[in-house]
């Protein structure tokens, strides 16, 4: 079992969701996130004064999957989120110790699916 965490551009979320759906990955958690990587930031301007915006709006996606689904999920996220420009985001894959479905008490791989 793996936990896949991805940070992507907010305006790419819809494409990512559609790619995941095509790859038959239907379970997803999404939160708003702020952060910066290589993209560094951008500039806004208010009444002629420059404002440096360092923390960019990103979307954080979390998906817990069984091992067979790790590669298809990662590929789907990349297909949806990649534009080729700096700021497309990152994907982290973390080993997952356990998973419990609260309603039934199921654990492990059955609880994920």
């Amino acid at each position, binding site marked *: 079992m793996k936990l896949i965490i991805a940070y992507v551009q*907010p*305006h790419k979320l*819809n494409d990512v969701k559609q790619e995941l759906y095509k790859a038959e990955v239907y379970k997803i958690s999404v939160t708003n996130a702020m952060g910066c990587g290589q993209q560094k930031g*951008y*500039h*806004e301007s208010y009444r002629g004064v420059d404002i440096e915006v360092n923390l960019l*709006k990103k979307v954080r996606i979390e998906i817990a999957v069984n091992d067979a689904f790790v590669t298809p999920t990662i590929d789907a996220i990349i297909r949806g989120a990649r534009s080729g420009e700096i700021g497309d985001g990152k994907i982290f894959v973390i080993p997952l110790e356990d998973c419990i479905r609260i309603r039934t008490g199921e654990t492990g791989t059955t609880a994920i699916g």
Partner: protein
Amino acid sequence: MRKRITALLLLGLCFSFAAIAQETTVGDVATAVNMMWLVLTGALVFFMQAGFAFVETGLTRAKNATNILMKNLMDFCFGSIVFWMIGWGFMYGADKFGGVIGFSDFFKGPMDADSFSFYRDWFFQVVFAATSATIVSGAMAERTQFKSYLIYTCFISAFIYPVSGHWIWSADGWLFKLGFHDFAGSTVVHSVGGWAALMGAIVLGPRIGKYVKVDGKVSVKAFPGHNIGWAFLGVFILWFGWYGFNPGSTLSGMDGAIGRVAVTTTLGGAAGAVAALIFSWIWFKKPDASMTLNGVLAGLVAITAPCAVVSPGASVVIGLIAGLLVVLAVEFIDKILKIDDPVGAVSVHMVNGVFGTLAVGIWGNVEGKAVGLLHGGGFHQLGIQALGVVAVGAWAGITSLLLFLAIKAIFGLRVSAKEELMGLDLGEHKSEAYHGFQIFTNM
């Protein structure tokens, strides 16, 4: 003590009134009343700009709020200057070619005391021209380049609106001479703006993600507005402004019809909302808020042409039909024609501008102005109304289509896909509307 002072004051007032009465004629009083009436109602019509701004901002997404507010401010500012420079001359200048266009009085600014009526009339007319221009920003919301919109707005206020306005509202206009009746501008103002809005939306194309192809079938997506409270406030402001738009169009504070015009305007707007509410309730299973708002505006647009020649009962019927029409038109334009009009501007202003103009020929009931089909006038008035609808539709539709195609070819009309997804506030203005708030922009 206090009573004695009041009595003295009253006595003094009586004397001063008597003194005025000796020098003032009835004509002077009429002049003063008309001046106050037109400047006051003109200011009410100006306030409709705020209504449009709030409706359009409320019904679109947070990432484009600054952009749409800027468009609503600047179309008035550019529009009023070009309307002074040349628009007024095309609309009310000396007639050329048998009622087709006016051509004099450009950059007009007489400084003698007798020209008060020009200034009064110009102020009352410029706010109508601006209303027509601002209708378009809603239909083209969330994807148009700011500079291209500014170019468009100069052309409609300087040329497209004044020419068809000349046909109908100038005493030399060819439609005016035929007896075409458009009291406050269902055709002159609303349908001209509505046709331009339709052409703008067609030339632009839909917002990204509005019509998505899934397995060969096009599915229609909704982009909910970000502040329905603003949309409501905007509609209330527009309705309030309409009490300048219609009653002011008597063009005289001495006109006894003002009261009835205010009543038919009220009933038309109210009936439009009721019909849209009930119809959307049956169709969509829930009373739809933004559709009901469109219903109010549809009723008001439809009653704008006939408001001075129909009875209160007829105004309710006209409003009810307008409310039905707007819901059908929104669904038809969105789901069948697949033209993306984010706020329903075409359905409200073009469809009901046309319907309201025709309604004069059906329910009109004032001898000497307009007698419609249902009151023994036969098809005569209805025929003239239909001719006006077709002529103005062709004029406004074709000129604005050519204008948008030309702007698209020369300057570009649409922002880049990336800018559209990020929001026009950041792309066009480099600043967001809601600083300090975290707003989901991942739609």
